[in-house]
């Protein structure tokens, strides 16, 4: 950025900084402690996944896909599986659909817990992060029992899921949900009702509601502005049209409203998981019969699929070319637009203290911005 005013200092907020979510850097022009210009720089986590996938068969690409988004890998696996099923014309069983919904909602809960730690850490409230990361650990223990991996599961594959549920899994999940519901009250008193958090968060990072839909904002940014949109209800996939859940919406457009939206979503995730446990079909193949790896060819077509992750709508564009390789898979994460178009404008005339607060509240995740 051109710096014509001699009083402006340029600092780099990142890439190695306790106040950013992940590994990116904000180039800030400061007048005292007020930001006059902001520019986002990414590229520290560019792993070249989209080029790698062009030389990989479906089973090989599947191991790469979950690593695109670090806090919440499962929507990536779901998008990939649904795109391949859409291209190849595979139908999966009801049981597999319910298991996938269960995995996605558990991942959403774990990601919201991690967000709580990040958001509270950005304002100096370290207690919440320690508690929520422990509770997230209990969810990760269940994931390890189900899939073998704590963070990267590699469980949702085109055609269904890869393993049957272990014995007693649904009972353990039900017990964990009771425990987490009790914990939400503790989080209310330490975090959501904390007077200092409210003083920091109300009126900060206010998004312009009128251009939110047109500019492509997704997830909590919309729902925190009073606009009720959720891919699970508007463009439903798997069995979400059979499940009963609400979409929490708040009118403030600021950091506090977005925090309350996420709290509401945690409650709704627990509700959905209880319904899944009750309605899980006891019969059905968990995986369809698929051709062998080198013979699993995709037709020369393209498709676009979207899933609602904890941070917003995740979109995948996939094109096949008649061979066993995927011709093109392009990822559009929820924080691509938030991290560039929205963040650079929101930070102007903000204080330096609020940069970490706003970035955590928008859910900026650098790995999915630059793949």
């Amino acid at each position, binding site marked *: 950025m051109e710096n014509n005013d001699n009083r402006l200092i340029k600092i780099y907020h990142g890439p190695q900084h306790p106040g950013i979510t992940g590994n990116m850097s904000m180039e800030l022009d400061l007048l005292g402690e007020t930001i006059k210009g902001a520019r986002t720089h990414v590229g520290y986590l560019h792993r070249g996944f989209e080029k790698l996938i062009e030389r990989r068969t479906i089973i090989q690409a599947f191991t790469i896909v979950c690593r695109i988004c670090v806090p919440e890998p499962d929507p990536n696996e779901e998008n990939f599986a649904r795109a391949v099923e859409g291209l190849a014309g595979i139908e999966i069983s009801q049981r597999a659909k319910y298991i996938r919904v269960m995995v996605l909602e558990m991942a959403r809960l774990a990601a919201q817990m991690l967000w709580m730690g990040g958001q509270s850490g950005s304002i100096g409230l370290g207690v919440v992060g320690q508690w929520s990361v422990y509770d997230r650990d209990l969810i990760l223990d269940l994931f390890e029992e189900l899939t073998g991996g704590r963070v990267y599961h590699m469980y949702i594959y085109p055609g269904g899921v890869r393993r049957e549920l272990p014995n007693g899994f649904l009972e353990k999940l039900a017990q964990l949900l009771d425990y987490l519901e009790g914990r939400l009250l503790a989080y209310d008193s330490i975090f959501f009702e904390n007077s200092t958090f409210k003083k920091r968060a109300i009126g900060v990072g206010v998004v312009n509601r009128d251009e939110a*839909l047109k500019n492509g904002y997704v997830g909590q940014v919309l729902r925190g502005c009073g606009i009720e949109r959720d891919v699970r209800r508007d463009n439903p996939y798997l069995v979400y049209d059979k499940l009963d859940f609400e979409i929490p919406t708040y009118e403030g457009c600021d950091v506090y409203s977005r925090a309350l939206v996420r709290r509401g979503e945690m409650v709704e995730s627990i509700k959905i998981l209880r319904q899944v446990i009750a309605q899980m079909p006891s019969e059905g193949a968990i995986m369809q019969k698929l051709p062998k790896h080198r013979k699993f060819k995709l037709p020369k077509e393209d498709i676009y699929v979207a899933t609602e992750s904890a941070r917003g*709508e995740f979109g995948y564009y996939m094109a096949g070319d008649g061979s066993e390789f995927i011709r093109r898979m392009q990822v559009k994460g929820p924080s691509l637009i938030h991290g560039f178009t929205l963040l650079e404008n929101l930070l102007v005339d903000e204080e330096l203290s609020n940069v970490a607060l706003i970035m955590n509240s928008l859910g900026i995740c650098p790995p999915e911005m630059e793949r």
Partner: protein
Amino acid sequence: MIEFLKKHYEIVEKAPRLYKLQIESDKLVEILSSVSINSNFITLSQIACTDWIEDEVFALNYILTTKERDKNLMVEVRISRVHCSLPTLLNLYPQAQVMERDLHEMYGINFRGNDTLYDFALENWNEIPPLRREFDTLAYVNEHFDFRIGREDNKDVKAEVKRRKAQAKESKDGK
């Protein structure tokens, strides 16, 4: 809304709530503005580019979403791989700025009117745009990077498996 679009353009329904439209590149801005104003596909969700090297085209899909976020429309434009240039959509959609920057860096497509096409994820990149099909990643890696010391005894898995199978077969035949 879909009925309006179906009257004026040739819309194909690829899946429930997913539609596709093929247009010429010189009508891009005109058709997209008309779709934004006259139907409720007001959001640009993604600009996806595929390299069909065998047909010598780039196929760009502009994926539009409705205001209710319930339907998606893929507007496909095919441009030449050699003279790849398109008008920018920055005036219609502010989010196009970062998407066009990404495609410019990865494919070398020039978006006329967008003067913020500096680097996105790569720094000091001196080769051809990497997502083009003719960019050979293996050659690039072999030219620019060295293997760490201690990897000399790293054997090729397939060759090693073949050798062990042959050895086992030999010992079985010998018995």
